[in-house]
């Protein structure tokens, strides 16, 4: 028992650091490890993973709040889409074959990773000036943040609000259906669709993941999919790891974050595709 607890705490710390840096819930890291390495039933892996998502989010939200990287308005506005999506996803479980979702999201992830590689290779890495978007201005979504690595206060505009909103609904759907934080999709919605800089995107995604996961976590809590002896030490490790991770992430330059993010996106995307086509790893 004590061995399992220590293993889970260590796994939690690693997943927490990785999750906070990449703006992922950590669930997508934890679920494959619990099922493939520990042979845990996928039902319990998903239950533990949704708790992991909340722990990552709550652990790092505290750090971001103090440093004001987070865009609270963007988070709350898009949260309408993700929570409704999460509930719809939870209700859809069992009706729809997750096979198609795996394939669809796998493709989307691989495409986004490819997109990010293109951005990385682009020598002209200066953030392009985004025009004022009417809807974004009306909703007061434009923001500014203090960038610790360049030691400057950076202002940014947000665009394509409807596009981001729709992707967020899909992110919520995936979260409710698969028990993940779907942080990757949330970062894509803000970074790729709404043209928000990566750091506020990651920080905002972290906050949103917790709220989205809370909508489906209660379902898992009351239907008995949460194993306390796995979920508790994992959550404790994650809390510690995500606090460490969010400190590291503010010092890392955005380009580095992107470089780490790309292989992770590829990895998850290919994993999801394989799962969709029924290939067991």
């Amino acid at each position, binding site marked *: *028992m004590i061995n399992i607890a220590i293993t889970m705490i260590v796994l939690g710390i690693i997943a927490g650091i990785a999750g906070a840096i990449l703006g992922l819930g950590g669930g997508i890291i934890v679920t494959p490890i619990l099922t493939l390495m520990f042979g845990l039933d996928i039902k319990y892996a998903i239950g533990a993973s949704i708790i992991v998502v909340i722990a990552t989010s709550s652990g790092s939200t505290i750090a971001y709040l103090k440093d004001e990287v987070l865009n609270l*308005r963007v988070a709350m506005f898009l949260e*309408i889409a993700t929570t409704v999506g*999460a509930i719809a996803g939870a209700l859809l479980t069992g009706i729809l074959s997750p096979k198609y979702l795996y394939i669809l999201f796998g493709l989307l992830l691989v495409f986004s990773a490819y997109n990010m590689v293109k951005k990385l290779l682009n020598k002209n890495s200066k953030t392009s000036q985004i025009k004022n978007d009417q809807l974004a201005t009306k909703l007061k979504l434009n923001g500014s943040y203090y960038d610790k690595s360049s030691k400057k206060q950076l202002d940014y505009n947000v665009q394509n609000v409807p596009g981001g909103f729709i992707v967020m609904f899909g992110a919520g759907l995936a979260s409710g259906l698969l028990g993940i934080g779907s942080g990757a999709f949330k970062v894509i919605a803000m970074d790729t669709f709404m043209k928000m800089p990566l750091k506020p995107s990651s920080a905002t995604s972290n906050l949103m993941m917790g*709220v989205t996961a809370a909508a489906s976590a209660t379902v898992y809590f009351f239907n008995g999919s949460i*194993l306390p002896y796995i979920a508790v030490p994992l959550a404790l490790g994650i809390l510690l790891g995500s606090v460490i991770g969010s400190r590291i992430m503010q010092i890392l330059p955005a380009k580095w974050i992107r470089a780490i993010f790309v292989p992770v996106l590829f990895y998850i995307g290919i994993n999801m595709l394989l799962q969709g086509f029924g290939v067991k790893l």
Partner: protein
Amino acid sequence: MNNKNKQIADEMNEIELIIGKILRIGVIISATIMIIGLLLFLVTGNSGYDQNYIPNNFKVIFKGIVQLKPYAIMMLGIFCLILTPVLRVVVSIYSFYKEKDKLYVYITSIVLIILIFSLFI
């Protein structure tokens, strides 16, 4: 006018700090409950219930807490952790209200209503 704006900005900074502290307390409380439960579980080597049984409703959990059953305490800690993002939404409504941002009081309230709705599905 500028003075007034500055005053609001100062006040908002203070509110943000208070929110940060409230959230930190929420996370610390749930972590403390989880640590107590986990230690009790490791020391006694027993969940307090029949093998494979997980207490998953409030009645059983609260009864188990009174009897200091490790799984009941661990589940309470997990539930408190699930509530921390909800707490974040609640305090954000207050923060927008203080900022006199009606639009976002409404938007954030909608999110809270959706979350409460999810509890009853």
